[in-house]
């Protein structure tokens, strides 16, 4: 029997999967894979500091994530090669700083996550975060769609693009944060990207795309947790979840891509 703490963790992981599928779908359409990788890796120095000084890793992760998000937001406002370069530098830099800061014993956990029981309080905070993510995505869905199609037309229709981008990045970072503990800094971002990539291959319809991405994400998280609990308990769920997610993507390659 699972303890209540374990059940909370499983339910939150599945809810995270829904948020990741949803946010990932829009991140994919916004072509911000690179930025999203940076965002998840930026959590690493925060995790490192938290392990080093023994405070809650989520607080450390949240602090550097917020910094990273604001940084990417500023970078997005400018265009050109400099952005790419900066993203590359921030990305590598945060992994390096994180690797130095994190005590060796905790490094694997910081990078790849660990399944652990949740207190009721932590669970409720997580649920609230997921609810906020889903709410924001649906509240700004129309504006996001117009912004994807043409920033110029969106602006002419009254969409405040810079603010919209900031909201989206914050929601994105919040999703990473929810997944951070059990997936780790390296893998949290990938669960936002891979299921969405799978969904995009399978359908050309926006609503179907969002739904399929969420299903792919929930399937990967659910089966990954089940496999590490019942079949391969020596592994932590993060890598297994990402591998299953990648396998689902590989399966989707069997289908001819949905033509435009």
């Amino acid at each position, binding site marked *: 029997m699972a303890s209540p703490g374990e059940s909370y963790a499983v339910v939150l992981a599945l809810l995270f999967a829904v948020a990741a599928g949803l946010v990932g779908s829009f991140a994919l*359409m916004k*072509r911000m894979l690179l930025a999203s990788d940076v965002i998840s890796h930026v959590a690493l120095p925060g995790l490192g500091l938290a392990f080093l000084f023994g405070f809650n890793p989520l607080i450390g992760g949240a602090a550097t994530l917020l910094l990273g998000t604001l940084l990417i937001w500023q970078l997005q406002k400018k265009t050109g090669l400099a952005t790419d370069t900066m993203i590359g530098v921030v990305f590598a830099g945060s992994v390096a700083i994180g690797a130095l800061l994190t005590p060796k014993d905790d490094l694997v956990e910081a990078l790849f996550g660990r399944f652990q029981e949740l207190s009721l309080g932590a669970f409720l905070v997580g649920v609230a975060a997921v609810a906020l993510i889903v709410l924001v995505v649906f509240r700004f*869905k*129309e*504006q996001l*769609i*117009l912004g*994807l*199609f*043409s920033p*110029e*037309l969106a*602006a*002419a*229709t*009254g*969409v405040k693009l810079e603010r919209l981008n900031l909201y989206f990045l914050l929601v994105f970072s919040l999703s990473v944060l929810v997944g951070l503990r059990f997936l780790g800094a390296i893998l949290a971002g990938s669960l936002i990207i891979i299921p969405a990539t799978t969904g*995009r291959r399978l*359908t*050309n*319809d*926006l609503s179907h*795309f969002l739904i399929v991405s969420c299903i792919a994400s929930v399937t990967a998280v659910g089966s990954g947790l089940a496999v590490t609990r019942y079949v391969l308990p020596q592994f932590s769920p993060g890598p297994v979840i990402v591998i299953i997610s990648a396998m689902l993507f590989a399966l989707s390659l069997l289908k001819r891509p*949905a033509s*435009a």
Partner: protein
Amino acid sequence: MAPILSVRDLTVEFDNRTVVHRLNFEIYPGDNVAIIGPNGAGKTVLLRALLNLVPYDGVIEWAPDAKLGYVPQKIAADRHLPLKVNDLLASKARLLKLPDQDIRLAAERVGLPPELLNTSVGILSGGQFQKALIAFALLGNPNALLFDEPMSSLDELAEERVYELLRDLQRERDMTVLLVSHDLSVVYQFATKVLCLSKANPCFGPPREILTPETLEAVYSAPVKFYQHHHHHDQ
């Protein structure tokens, strides 16, 4: 009659270059203004300033009841986006809190068949795409339409249809139209006023005054020939 748009001392910089310099003009409801000028004279930048999409110096004053519709020149739309025409129209309709039937009406008005509403924007032909953009602009019943070089992606027949549509819309709704165009003969036929942008000689007035060989030569810094427009659709 009060102007629907007055522009005073408008200066717009783009890439650290002054593109529009101290421009002054007034437009009245129902005017049909063609904006002409050589490449790089700032035609698109002017429209974007009028829509408040780029920073500018000077005064741009729209009448309080002005409702703007915008058809951009070229949309670098990502053809791989899983977006249907209806996703775009419905998004705008929801943002403006318009009833769903407005989408159907706008599509009908521009002659966009219902089945195209459920087609991905990526596979529309140039003419269909243009219609979708006009339908998008018409949502919310604008009384001023800013139309940037609508014909660049169209063949001659489709182009003529777009002009006809513009003319009809203007008649029906007493719409004010600002049209950026390269095609001087169309401008001659279509416009009630012409605004020509050029560094040395910006000018504004009725076509008969502006579209003279002398003025055009000054605007384009080269002799310009144009003929009354006669389309031949015999291919």
